[in-house]
């Protein structure tokens, strides 16, 4: 029966997934094994997104179904689920820019791909990125921005990380509708990604290389 939840969630069958969870809880199944299946299903969702079989609405909807499952399982949990993480990543939309859709998708994809994501939200000043990197010891920073003013904010943020003496131990990726290699050079970031799938590939490459 465990295969059912994985495929129901991965195939975005909300009713079916929630029913399976309810049945398993009623049968006294271990809540952690239910959450483990949910996580495996989300990995499949992420893989399908990376292969362009799924699109952003599929991700958002899978997240909604997962929320429902977590809400059902949580009261039965006696100990916290321990998940092995690939690495830590500080993410945010840079100063002056409040666009969040792209950043949220990147955050979501990195999370389901096994990264510990510290999402600082939108309009994030350079210093906040620096502080969070120091606090968490994260090895990757992701800067998001939709407007052209973000080019300068990204450059400032990379500069602030440099000034704080952290540049040597973090890799910085940037992304957003207008970002290309020309902007990457301008900002001094290590890489740019066209979409959330690219962000995951970059992050995996970087932690693999460490």
């Amino acid at each position, binding site marked *: 029966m465990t295969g059912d939840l994985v495929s129901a969630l991965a195939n975005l069958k909300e009713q079916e997934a929630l029913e399976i969870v309810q049945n398993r809880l009623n049968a006294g199944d271990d809540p952690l094994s239910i959450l483990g299946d949910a996580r495996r299903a989300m990995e499949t969702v992420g893989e399908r997104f990376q292969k362009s079989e799924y699109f952003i*609405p599929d991700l958002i*909807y899978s997240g909604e179904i997962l929320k429902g499952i977590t809400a059902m399982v949580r009261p039965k949990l006696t100990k916290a689920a321990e998940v092995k993480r690939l690495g830590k990543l500080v993410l945010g939309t840079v100063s002056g*820019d409040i666009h969040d859709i792209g950043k949220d998708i990147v955050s979501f994809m990195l999370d389901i791909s096994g990264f510990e994501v510290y999402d600082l939200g939108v309009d994030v000043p350079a210093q906040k990125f620096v502080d969070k990197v120091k606090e968490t010891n994260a090895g990757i920073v992701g800067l998001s921005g939709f407007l052209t*003013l973000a*080019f300068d904010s990204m450059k400032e943020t990379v500069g602030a990380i440099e000034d704080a003496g952290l540049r040597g131990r973090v890799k910085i990726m940037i992304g957003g509708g207008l970002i*290309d290699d020309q902007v990457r050079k301008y900002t001094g970031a290590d890489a740019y990604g066209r979409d959330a799938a690219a962000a995951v590939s970059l992050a995996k490459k970087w932690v693999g290389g460490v």
Partner: protein
Amino acid sequence: MAKTPEELYQERVKRIEDAIQLKVPDRIPLVPHPGFFPLKYAGITVQEAMYDYNKTYIAWKKTLSDFEWDGYYPPLLLSGYVFEHLDYRALRWPGHGVKPTAPYQFVEPGQVIEGEREVYAPMRAEDYDWFLDDPSDYMIRAYLPKIIGALAPLTKLPPIHGIITHYQGLFDALPVVGTPEVLGALESISKASAESLNWLNSLTAFIDEMEEMGFPAFFRNVASVPYDFIANFLRGTRGAMIDMYRNPDKLLKAIEKVTPWQIQTAVDGAEATGTSRVAIFPHKGFKGLMSEEQYKTFYWPTFRQVILGIIDAGLTPFIFTEGDYTSRLEIIRDVPKGKVVYHIERDIFKAKEVLGDVACLTGGPPSSLLCTGTVDEVKDYCKKLIDVVGKGGGYILNPEVPLIDENPENVKAMTDFFKKHGVYR
């Protein structure tokens, strides 16, 4: 002998019209979306421009006088005072959440900007029936009070359709209207209304003046893609996406409901302003934001209806696609020939291949190039644009995305290069 502004005006109008009708004009018309660029170029902050309308017009006049483009987008700086009177929530503007020099930015329903709380709540999925049964009642008693703080008391009104006569409705509604908070709201609206009239009059005077200087406005009126109308303003991006799975029928009904409204707003606007082009800025249908199947179900059919309705009314839809539209090009090909203008942000070269024989295209250098590239790099790119996209007409130069922080030297290089090398015959 120098041409008179009147002659230049006629020449520019014809140049643009020829391109739209897929004829070969005398040269490629230049109609860049100026975005917020003129302000920076003239040394005026966005904040100044939103509170001193004349400064906006000074900036636009300076930009057009210096670059002499063939058409222009009227400034959409709107009025900071009006937003203040309204306590407007759907926007962050200088002094209200963004820096004085930053462009104003739209706040989505349900968007969280600081802390944990959303700035204003999206329409709830349960409210589809309300919206579908009585949209104006929903707008007055639920939607507007959310995005306009001054109208918050309107949530207390009884249903508007129930206010019918002296013995039914009127005496239930009036006491609510008479409360100090509703009277206060009405006073704020009255101030906002007076100020918006000032703003509109100043804009109209500016457009007339530009005409006398020889510059035609490219468009005046705007309509929405029906899906975007729901996703941008009512349900939010996430809400509409989830509706595609959980409430597909309601979502479709709502989309169909608002479709004729878009055509009506285009026709009314054209009548009021005497201009024939209607701009549509499709936001939420590009690659990634939905699958092709979802695009064909929720996005394109009613979008196409709006396009055809606008054309049937004798007007020209100017469709400014945003994001990567490459995978949608074959779909949006299905429109009458020579009647539509498409702006393509990504891969204008591919768009020329797919759409070139059907629709006039606008597009141009990417903003990264214009912001951070060299003059020579800009010229190389422009040469490619002229050779490939300009071939055979049907092309209007317009950088990939609206200008904001672009380097004026590069904008000048682009302009001069097109005027010199974009000549036909």
